[in-house]
């Protein structure tokens, strides 16, 4: 499992971890029941605070991606297809918001965007 942290990114570190772990789970690199590295080990290896990794794992647990059993560790939770779909939708929405922001600034119309979307989707 590879986790790469960027110190210069404006995104908080715990968010970077959360996103990367989500990707790993969504992509299937890790499946239900697989053990994640302990929060402390992850913190040590990445040279970051254990509170950061704890926060990342808590967030992942809150969103249903992992389960933490005290004394045993953290495991990939049952892959709930609803959950994944929602996650994907969320990502798409984020990106669409970005696209719309740019469009508004550049005074490009809604219709032009929809056209572009249709073309892209066909590919």
């Amino acid at each position: 499992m590879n986790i790469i942290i960027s110190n210069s990114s404006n995104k908080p570190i715990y968010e970077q971890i959360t996103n990367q772990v989500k990707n790993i789970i969504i992509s299937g690199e890790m499946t239900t029941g697989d053990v994640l590295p302990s929060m402390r080990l992850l913190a040590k290896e990445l040279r970051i605070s254990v509170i950061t990794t704890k926060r990342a794992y808590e967030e992942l647990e809150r969103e249903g991606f992992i389960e933490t059993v005290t004394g045993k560790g953290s495991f990939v939770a049952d892959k709930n297809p609803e959950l994944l779909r929602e996650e994907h939708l969320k990502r798409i929405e984020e990106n669409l918001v970005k696209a719309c922001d740019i469009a508004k600034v550049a005074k490009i119309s809604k219709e032009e965007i929809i056209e572009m979307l249709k073309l892209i989707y066909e590919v």
Partner: protein
Amino acid sequence: MQNMSLGKNSIVVDKISKRYDGFSLDNVSFNLPKGCIMGFIGENGAGKSTTIKIILGLVNPETGNVSVLGDSAQNGDIREDIGVVFDEGCFPDEMNADNLRSSFKYIYKNWDSNVFDDYLKRFAIPHKKNMKDFSRGMKMKLAIAVALSHKAKLLVLDEATSGLDPIVREQILDVFMEFIQNEENSILLSSHIVSDLEKVCDYITFIHEGKILLSKEKDLLMEEFGLLKCSKKELESMPKDAIERVRENQFGVEALVKRNKIGRNAIVDKATLEDIMLFMIRGNKVC
């Protein structure tokens, strides 16, 4: 016995004050939760060493209480669980590492000579060379080896990494991170080399002229603040409660700002811990 919370904190500092000629600690309070590393930062003379001495029982505060591992450091049993490293090597120069091992075997109940020898090997410290001939880095590493060889639960280091080269400092920080793998262990690390602390610390406590300016989770601190560079005029249009400190130069201003209050339009850069410290000390508040 004071009613201090036994479970969660390794160190509880509660409103301590101490006055000296020309310097005083004023109402200093902070907690170090178990399983965490706390970086204690401040410029030279800010009060870090004095606070640490009070925590360790070397100095008595005029007011306030300190609790260490649920009790006081004045209690000999508690000191079994505390490992201390001061910035000056505290062992007689005429001794060597083997001598230290022989002496400490009878000083600490939980002394483990094998663990000590492992650290000597790892740090490449010769067994029979007199400490007189050690470099500062080696003296520090030896002191750390001693502090880690008696099953301590709390490490207190007062400027232990100052004056060491980056290679040695990283070696030492690695050892700390291993120590903290055990959730019962904690580290209080004071330093004015802020970049070291930025990497490994969970909490940051910032002391300035004897007062605590802040004590919080490092992540929250780093997320809270950012650097804004702009013209003086542009700064005036920013919300006043977002601006923490300002530094002017001939060609513009730099401001330490609160990210959540500055609004979306401003381009805010990441502030390092050192930036935060410099701005807090040398920057000006906006009236």
